[in-house]
């Protein structure tokens, strides 16, 4: 509602301004007959007709906002989206806004390729800090950097444990009591695993990106920080918490043999799960809709198992404002973004995609409350948010993330011992971070 009032007010004031001849120059950009054209880059990270849904939302926005003409531009995966965004900024054609993987935002800030949203937030009469209270607190470290709001959270996920009720019963486990700790999980997995290879106890994706995401979860469950959440130049790969986490992975695959060796991708996990060849899997909450639609036998979800604490890293995407846009386009982008993250629209997008809504108030709406009571699995995913931890982001994020992922993948293939893996990962990461560290933390003063 506030949106409409603000817009009406804008138009009224424009009507007044029109009467004044001096304002003639302004009318070109602001008068409804000549709407401000903006483009929104968006990736499609989960399977489904998301692109259609996004177009439908943008069409609805355009009919409600005569002074803006927004276009949704599909830009591939998260990585492709970042590549295209960077190239477009360099070529002088920055998009008005981008739905950017939340762990890339810090790099955009470091490279000076984005503007903060603060001045636009303040124009609405709010401080940035008050505005950000609209979102779950765990989203803050990936969005608010150096006290400025660079990312407006749009769609988010955490890893979640999915388990097969039939497999639990068959193994003599109680499907109402999912494993809560690493030890419980390992015990259950041993019972779930069949020696003839017809069923595994545990599977989760070990492909790039997923691998780093889940590794950070294990390390943080083990009490660690994994990386410096406030400064992009430090990672804690060679720490006891990391060593313990990698030792767990080594045990699962190579000692207890409750998880298939080598690297599985998300498709392999879901295929095995649907086929009844898997007891528990760790997968994104963004997969909830897909699992719900395709799993023929009963399944349940639970929090990720803990070691010293519960921890589930955030994933997903935030809206950023690329540098180089005119104030008119920035203002129009802000109107669009405010509309997209309004509780109604955010809730609708969440129900359609399976992502959780970053906007807390979305869950107070009747549609959303009905959805949560109809889908207890989504409710558990939401409850796990109280244990949410931020998503790995550093200088040169992808390469630094891979430094650890390569070692974890080597563990999955029994090619390296955990103690050597953490040393190698730290060494590779330090090397990659050095240019940034030398420009910042180690920069000589005076």
């Amino acid at each position, binding site marked *: 509602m506030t949106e409409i009032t603000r817009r009406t007010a804008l138009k009224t004031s424009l009507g007044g301004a029109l009467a004044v001849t001096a304002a003639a120059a302004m009318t070109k950009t602001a008068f409804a007959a000549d709407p401000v054209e903006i483009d929104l880059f968006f990736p499609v990270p989960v399977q489904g007709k998301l692109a259609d849904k996004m177009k439908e939302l943008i069409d609805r926005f355009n009919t409600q906002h005569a002074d803006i003409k927004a276009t949704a531009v599909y830009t591939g995966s998260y990585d492709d989206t970042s*590549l295209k965004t960077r190239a477009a900024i360099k070529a002088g054609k920055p998009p008005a806004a981008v739905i950017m993987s939340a762990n890339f935002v810090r790099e955009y800030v470091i490279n000076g390729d984005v503007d903060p949203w603060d001045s636009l937030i303040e124009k609405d009469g709010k401080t940035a800090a008050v505005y950000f209270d609209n979102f779950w607190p765990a989203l803050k470290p990936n969005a608010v950097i150096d006290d400025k709001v660079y990312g407006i959270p749009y769609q988010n996920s955490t890893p979640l444990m999915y388990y097969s009720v039939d497999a639990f019963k068959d193994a003599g486990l109680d499907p109402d009591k999912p494993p809560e700790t690493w030890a419980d999980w390992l015990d259950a997995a041993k019972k779930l695993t069949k020696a003839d290879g017809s069923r595994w106890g545990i599977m989760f994706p070990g492909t790039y990106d997923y691998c780093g995401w889940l590794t950070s979860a294990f390390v943080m469950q083990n009490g660690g920080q994994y990386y410096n959440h406030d400064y992009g130049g430090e990672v804690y790969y060679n720490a006891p918490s990391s060593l313990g986490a990698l030792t767990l992975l080594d045990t699962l695959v190579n000692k207890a043999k409750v998880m298939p060796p080598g690297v599985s991708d998300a498709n392999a996990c879901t*295929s095995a799960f649907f086929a009844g060849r898997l007891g528990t899997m760790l997968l994104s909450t963004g997969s909830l809709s897909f699992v719900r639609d395709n799993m023929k036998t009963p399944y349940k979800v639970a929090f990720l198992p803990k070691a010293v604490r519960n921890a589930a890293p955030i994933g997903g995407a935030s809206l950023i404002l690329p540098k180089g846009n005119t104030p008119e386009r920035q203002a129009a982008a802000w109107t669009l973004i405010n509309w997209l993250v309004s509780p109604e629209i955010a809730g609708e997008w969440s129900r359609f995609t399976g992502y959780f809504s970053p906007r807390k108030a979305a869950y107070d709406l009747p549609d959303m409350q009905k959805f949560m009571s109809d889908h207890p699995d989504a409710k558990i995913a939401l409850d796990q948010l109280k244990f949410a931890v931020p998503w790995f982001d550093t200088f040169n994020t992808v390469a630094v993330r891979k430094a650890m992922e390569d070692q974890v993948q080597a563990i999955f293939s029994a090619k390296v011992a955990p103690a050597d893996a953490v040393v190698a990962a730290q060494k590779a990461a330090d090397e990659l971070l050095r240019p940034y560290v030398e420009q910042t933390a180690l920069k000589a003063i005076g």
Partner: protein
Amino acid sequence: MRTRGRIIALLAASAAALIWVVPFAWMAVASLRPGVPPDIASLTPSGPFGLGNFVEAWTSGSFPLWYLNTFLMCGGILAVQLVTISMAGYAFARLDFPGRDVVFSLFPLQLLLIPPLLIVPNLQTLVSLHLYDRLPGIMAPYFASAFGVFLMRQTFRAIPKDFEEAAMLDGASIPVLIRHVLLPLARPGLVAFAIVSLTAHWNEFLWPLMAVSSPQNQVLTVGLSTFTSGAEAGSDWGVVAAGTFFVAAPLLILFLVFQRRFISSFVSSGIK
């Protein structure tokens, strides 16, 4: 001995063909199976089968528009390329100019550049030419082809000079000579190049994704990925296979129809 050699060659070729055909066979089988069956990897499932995936894939995207854009893109690139490579190929094959051999040996070096390296400079050029986010913008970087020039030079050089000398005696200019004497004789080379060019640009993903933004300028590969990519969840393989079939079908049909001509082109142009 000869027959035994032939049998071995035939067996080897059949084995290679079998390996080559497996992905296509799987695509065909998977596209006919509804949902996400547990034995999705199977080549010989028991069913059920249906055409639902094709309906879903077709309605998930704007295939007619994507086909049109892709035809325009590939056709436009090829049309300009045929002109540029014939002319440049002729220059390198027949004309004597200072530095010819140096330039010609430098020419294929551009094949060594990895395309992503050129994304930003190419985009900047497109913006200054006002071709950003337009179909001609996708085509522009490919108007010259090092591979094509190389191929045409070799093809022209293989044609005996007598034909040209005879035409020149009759007063033919160089453009007439190329158009009416050399190009008809070089047809196998042109056809071979056309296949390589068409398949390369038909299948290209990254550059079209970078060069255009507006939905009305989207091509098949980018369009397909709008409803088939799924990093965070599993994939609906049946729909992916059906969509991939739509993308691959025109090239498959083209190849089947002109199979004999293509093969003879490759044989006589020396590409195998």
